[in-house]
């Protein structure tokens, strides 16, 4: 048993160091999260190895042999105080950076662009502000096949919003974005592992998180809160572009006003109905 315990302690460390499974290369500003994670790995790893090896030593050194008697030692105030102090120190060393980074996570930079992601079983839609640089009003009452995001047709701020329904979301590299999250049916969660950040989307509420994409590329997004039978198939994609490519892409997108009146909207509605029929 003692030997097995030693192997577990060393084997776990070896696995940690050598195994090919590790986090995805980061693509956002949240490397602070990775740093906190590494600090936590160090502290907990040391505690784990130390305690398991100590147990292994005890099991070997104090194993039963004929004639052996255990010591009688009910408690030791001093030792306990030391251990409590040391543990508290370790906990503080993890909590302090954790809370500092959380402080950054909840405070969105004022120059962040607001964009919106809307979830429904089992697909994503995206909305970007139009020329007025802000997102218009939306309400579940307006949701229809022609208007899947429920934008308010009376609101001028909404009419110029860019709606991406069924395509990839593009973002310019290096600009902080505040992602507003909505759901029109059940709880979903938008997660791109490379960005590290995620948040649930709750029907009847608007939630948010923010991040800054730091490298270009295409990243898979997934739904990360169980949302029904096709939860696992609720995928999406975020493409982070350099500024010129982003502009080109943006110019090809349709605004809410264009979609609602044009043939694209009608075609889209027909496709939705057909999907549902299947």
């Amino acid at each position: 048993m003692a030997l097995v315990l030693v192997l577990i302690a060393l084997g776990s460390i070896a696995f940690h160091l050598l195994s090919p499974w590790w986090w995805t290369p980061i693509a956002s500003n949240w490397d602070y999260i990775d740093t906190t994670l590494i600090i936590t790995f160090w502290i907990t790893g040391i505690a784990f190895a130390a305690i398991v090896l100590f147990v292994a030593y005890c099991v070997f050194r104090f194993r039963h042999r004929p004639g052996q008697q255990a010591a009688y030692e009910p408690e030791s105030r001093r030792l306990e105080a030391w251990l409590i102090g040391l543990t508290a120190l370790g906990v503080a060393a993890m909590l302090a950076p954790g809370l500092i980074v959380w402080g950054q996570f909840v405070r969105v930079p004022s120059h962040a662009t607001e964009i919106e992601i809307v979830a429904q079983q089992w697909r994503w839609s995206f909305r970007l502000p139009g020329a007025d640089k802000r997102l218009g009003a939306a309400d579940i009452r307006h949701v229809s096949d022609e208007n899947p995001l429920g934008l308010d047709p009376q609101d001028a701020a909404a009419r110029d919003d860019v709606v991406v329904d069924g395509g990839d979301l593009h973002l310019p590299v290096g600009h902080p974005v505040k992602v507003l999250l909505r759901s029109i049916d059940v709880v979903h969660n938008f997660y791109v592992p490379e960005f590290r950040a995620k948040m649930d989307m709750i029907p009847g509420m608007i939630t948010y998180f923010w991040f800054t994409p730091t490298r270009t590329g295409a990243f898979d997004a997934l739904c990360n809160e169980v949302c029904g039978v096709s939860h696992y198939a609720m995928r999406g994609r975020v493409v982070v572009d350099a500024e010129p490519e982003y502009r080109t892409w943006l110019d090809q997108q349709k605004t809410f006003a264009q979609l609602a009146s044009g043939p694209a909207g009608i075609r889209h509605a027909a496709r939705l109905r057909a999907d549902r029929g299947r």
Partner: protein
Amino acid sequence: MADAQFGAAGALPRADLDDVELYHPHSWLTKYVFSQDAKIIAVQYSCTALAIGLVALVLSWLVRLQLGFPGVASFIGPKEYYQFITMHGMIMVIYLLTALFLGGFGNYLIPLMLGARDMVFPYVNMLSYWIYLLAVLVLVASFFVPGGPTGAGWTLYPPQAILAGTPGQEWGIVLMLVSLILFIIGFTMGGVNYVVTVLQARAPGMTLMRMPLTIWGIFTATVLALLAFPALFVGAVMMLLDRLLGTSFFMPAIVEAGQRLAYGGGSPILFQHLFWFFGHPEVYIVALPAFGIVSDLISTHARKNIFGYRMMVWAIVAIGALSFVVWAHHMYVSGMNPYFGFFFATTTLVIAIPTAIKVYNWVLTLWRGDIHLTLPMLFALAFIVTFLNGGLTGLFLGNVVVDVPLSDTLFVVAHFHMVMGVAPILVIFGGLYHWYPKVTGRMLDERLGQLHFWATFLGAYAIFFPMHYLGLMGVPRRYFDIEGLGFVTPSVATLNAFISIVAFLVGAAQIVFLVNLARSRTHGAPAGGNPWRATTLEWQTPETPPAHGNWGRTLPVVYRWPYDYSVPGADRDFVPQNQPGLTRAEAGAAS
């Protein structure tokens, strides 16, 4: 005793009978089936829990089959997959672990370890079991109704839990909620009993600070459960009303598949708060009895007093109290006000301190002990390793910002399996190997036990340790299929297949254990009254297995704490709690 006769119907019992005689059962049916004896009820609870646990085990095989070898089993589609994980999780947490620790170990050990004759309300105690059985049957019934059991995930988050996009929306979710409501009613009847018995029915001399830690653990867990289950109860009732009567407690305005539903105005997050206000203490409802039991196993089999008994008691109480102010660490990315994160991360990490004390004290109990590597001791050591591992990964998930990338990935699955799946189950096994001789009078087979131990311990570690790293990579939990995710490297499939194969082996080892349980009842080596030379009262009963009423004519008197092992000056390496002097000679002279 057996020849005690009662007069014709309606006549009073003879006056010269002892009080004790009056409540003995008089037919096979009242003795073994509708029994009011806590020991029989304990066995009933344990057998039912193990039986339904076997279902959960088979479900975990099916889940692992799909994850390790996607598409190989054609009968597992996404619908079935979600139903399987939901039922697996719910059964394991509620119907196996909670029922086994409190209904099983609690019923057996509370009266015996405290020197009581029985629970204080034996009739209510009996009802508790039968309602639990009913809850289990309702749960099982949901496998056979149209649409099958619910596939909402064991957390049952609305709105999806009661909408058509989730499997089992027709009947499954209704039966699940009804079953939970029944379970809570049944549990409350038992729980009131455990608390009152601990507070009121201890033998003379058994002060609170002389109670074995097993009892402290079970007692505190029961108090927690009595305070936490009501939150789940109201949540379940409200969701049932939403589902059946169209109320909107948890349902905002929703457009589902193009249809505007009649709901409006409710709050999905409210359910999450209710659920986790129950759900987090639930972790400790399972963990605290395990803490207590493992303390006693370590002390007995290392022939040494538990180190820092008072600190251990206070740690249990502190953990119990703190566990009510950490629930929202399950909701860091739920969309609740993010400023809550500061508070809940702090409380969560503070809980690590009393928890760490417990680990230190177990380990320090081993120091300079006389360690017998019996099966209960092996399981206790395995518990320390897995609990330590799972507890430490809890520091990742509790530290709000670190939880953001990890939540709802396989990291979480690995963490909670280590800490509240594997670790408590190992204690249950250790406890069963330890107390089985008292329950049946026979030892469990050692060779089968060794096989069971090594397969379970090493297997479970091999399943769940590597799984953390998949979660770190971003592999989500509750995914029927991860095909096509760009960030998942091809080698993940290999690891998943490996994990599944180990899971099948670990499952098979549990069959060995069940065979051992069944066979040793008749074929095991006779155990005698106190095979482990333990100090606590249950090992000092006049008969083994203990008779109804436990103690014969006179209750035991308690003279000392439960951890007098290897006391200098004693004639044996243990001094039973009911022995007045250090040596038996002294004790004889005194009485």
